């Protein structure tokens, strides 16, 4: 089974990298970009086909390692 974990900074946390990318897009003349925030994507392959079991494992993975919940939130998506 395949899943995707998306980790993003909480909205209250400043994202200087996102700001720099935003500035670069503006200087490239890409129109209409109001703001950019950078995050991380993890594509995870899981053994078995039980979605509930997989979700428990992925939540554990996020809380233990993939996200720092002081500054980040995560979202789990199944393919």
């Amino acid at each position: 089974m395949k899943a995707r974990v998306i980790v993003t900074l909480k909205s209250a946390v400043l994202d200087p990298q996102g700001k720099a990318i935003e500035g670069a897009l503006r200087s490239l003349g890409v129109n209409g970009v109001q703001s950019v925030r950078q995050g991380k994507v993890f594509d995870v392959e899981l053994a078995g086909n039980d979605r509930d079991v997989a979700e428990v494992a992925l939540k554990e993975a996020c809380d233990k390692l993939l996200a720092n919940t002081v500054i980040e939130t995560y979202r789990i998506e199944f393919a």
Partner: protein
Amino acid sequence: MKPAVILFPGSNRERDAARALRLVAGAKPNIVWHAEHELPAGTDLVVLPGGFSYGDYLRCGAIAARANIMDAVRAHAAKGGLVLGICNGFQILCEAGLLPGVLVRNARLRFVCREVVLRVERADTAFTKAYRKADLIRIPVAHGEGNYTADEATITELEKEGRVAFRYARPDGQIDETDGPNGSINGIAGIYSEKFNVLGMMPHPENYIEPEIGPTDGRGLFESLAGALKAA
């Protein structure tokens, strides 16, 4: 005094930390590999050195914080044992939950490698007894992710409990976070745990211990530790 300096894959300041402990504190530090499960018997100080553990992959210090040895470090800290995290070591302590908050990318996005002025916020801890309160000391920094941040409640608590160890200061001693090297809230350069036995700091006191190199303002920290552990 029996210090253990923990070595993670990608640490690169472990020998400087050990050298400072030898030269200034007269100790014989053990270098301990991260995959070990136990600290050498009698260890009374754990040092997490600077560097780029695991290449800063995922987040700085994130993977090192989950190493085997960290359970032993946690147990040592829980018993009141002293722990010092310098630079990447500070990042590891935050990621391991031994200190609150997190160090994020410098506000101006640049890696900053230069000398800074620190104000010693209190001189009554095992790490700072050789200084005086409000001393201004010169210590170098070298980091890309030293911007200390935490939620408002945590910052309020740190300030209320006097747990800020050092702040980035101007040469006249004033604190202005916009002048600091990395944008840290309230100019925070280092913080203590609740019981003041764990210290994490971004600057490198181990760099400034010999007159041949330059200023020796870093000696105070190692002298303090030697004093505290001799008395214990």
